């Protein structure tokens, strides 16, 4: 999520040097658990994953330096390249479908009308359920054995139906979540702006393209970033629902990381894939931040 770091109202006035220093020490003390947690479980692992990617690092046994074999050795790995292409394709499809669905739903429940509150809750409710639980739910729902649809969208039928099943699941689980974010952005647009547009004789479509979309730009950037990064990291839906099949056709990048680490027992290669993925994800976030900062452009 995006935030700007604004200084909070801090209780520091022109206090004498002694008490001010004591107050700084107290603040440090209270911040210490945060510093420890962030240092030990975020900063250190971040460095460690980069360090591991430069080594032959078996699950059991002593690591040895082998850079850059973990990076170059994977280029001929068809499972990895297929997974990269699949993840990219999946990301494009989900981004288009999920974003348009969520925006449509947000526009539908934007204004308070009878039933709106009920609709919002109904749309959002799937997001309260864990994603792994939702994946298992759809496994039964779409099955020929007990599902009401008789296995029309089979998770193991063909590459297309397996992908279709995962898309249905993701739309159901995440549309309401993204709708809520878009809704907060929509509600931040002052009603006077719409009234002024109406006075100027703007039609519904013109208002949407010339007022709503430009003013919603920051929120749209946030939602797109969340969808793109979430899709690039896809795991649960394929691990649980399609098992990566049929014939590895729905094997995602994070599934390859898991497989390299815990099935091929090669943590070094898994770390190398992680590092590349991490760089791509940080780049996506930086693009989003740039869009947010650049307020002059429409």
């Amino acid at each position, binding site marked *: *999520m*995006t*935030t700007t770091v604004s200084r*909070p*109202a*801090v*209780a520091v006035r022109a206090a004498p040097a002694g008490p*001010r220093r004591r107050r*700084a020490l*107290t*603040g*440090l003390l*209270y*911040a210490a658990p*945060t510093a420890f947690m*962030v240092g030990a*479980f*975020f900063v250190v*692992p*971040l460095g*460690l*994953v980069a360090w591991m990617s430069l080594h032959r690092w078996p699950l059991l046994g002593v690591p040895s330096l082998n850079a850059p074999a973990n990076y170059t050795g994977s280029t001929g790995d068809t499972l990895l390249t297929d997974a990269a292409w699949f993840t990219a394709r999946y990301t494009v499809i989900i981004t288009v479908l999920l974003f348009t669905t969520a925006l449509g739903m947000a526009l*539908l429940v934007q204004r308070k009308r*009878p*039933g*709106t509150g*009920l*609709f919002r809750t109904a*749309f959002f*409710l*799937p997001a*309260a359920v*864990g994603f*792994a*639980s939702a994946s*298992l*739910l759809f*496994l*039964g*729902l779409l*099955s020929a*054995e007990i599902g009401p649809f008789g296995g029309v969208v089979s998770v193991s039928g063909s590459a297309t139906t397996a992908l279709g099943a995962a898309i249905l699941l993701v739309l159901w689980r995440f549309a309401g979540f993204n709708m*809520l974010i878009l809704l*907060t952005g929509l509600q*931040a647009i002052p009603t006077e702006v719409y009234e002024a547009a109406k006075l100027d004789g703007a039609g519904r479509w013109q208002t949407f393209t010339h007022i709503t979309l430009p003013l919603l730009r*920051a929120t749209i*950037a*946030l939602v797109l970033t969340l969808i793109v990064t979430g899709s690039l990291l896809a795991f649960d839906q394929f*691990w*649980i629902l399609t098992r990566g099949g049929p014939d590895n056709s729905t094997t995602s990048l*994070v599934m390859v*990381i*898991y497989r390299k680490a*815990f099935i091929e027992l090669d943590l070094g290669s898994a770390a190398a894939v*992680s*590092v590349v993925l*991490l760089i791509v*994800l*940080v780049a996506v*976030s930086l693009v989003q931040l740039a869009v947010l900062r650049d307020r002059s452009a429409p």
Partner: protein
Amino acid sequence: MKILHPVTGGALAVLFLFPLLWSGYASLRTPDGFGLENYARLFTDDSGIRGYHVLNSLTVAALTVGGTLLVATLGGYAFGRFEFPGRDALFLVTLAILMVPYATILIALYVLLGWIGLQDSLLGLSLVLIMFQLPFAIFMMRNSFAAVPRELEESAQVDGASSLGVLLRVMLPAVRPGLVTVALFAFLSSWSEFFAPLILLNSTDRFTMTLAVVNMRTATFGAIDYAALEAGVTLMAVPCLLLFMVLQRSYVRGFMSGALRG
């Protein structure tokens, strides 16, 4: 357009509610009517789950909620009310956790927990889950503390209370809505988390409920017991749905304060 709203909205609402209702229905459906047979099979089949899996999930959720509340309360108090060297840097690094999705550092966390003897342990898993929660929790608590009127704090200080006394007696009651939101988010995500337990836990008797139920699907090569699976889904989903309905207001408010500062 006037008629479009209730018709489209209603149809979509049915579409979104249907899978949840169906799961509950399928979990209770038996060959001769309705009953709890699927739930019984969920807990007794060889590949099924056991009572301790539920207990493991509750333990992880309790440790994560408790730990997150403790660290985020102290940290939020520090960030929102004190001036100290390195404050802004530490705050930025904490928020940076959001930019580095955890799936990419879990391999390193697995190795790291091995070094400190916490591999394959519920405590190790909980520590990692607390770290995932920190960016949102710290952000939320920092804003909550910063919004408390200064006079409240000062009058307690005049009475001679220590900073810890001020925190416990004056500040905590004032930031209760923030605490509820942080606890709710921490519970929902730790109770349902799948990828982190999958990587960090090895022994089946330490599996969380989510992991154990997924294992019924992935470890069986024969026919999947779909009805027992839906019983598991219902058991996992009901606490989340109930909590969300009860605390919907604070969830949405926390969401708005966290999501949109762009």
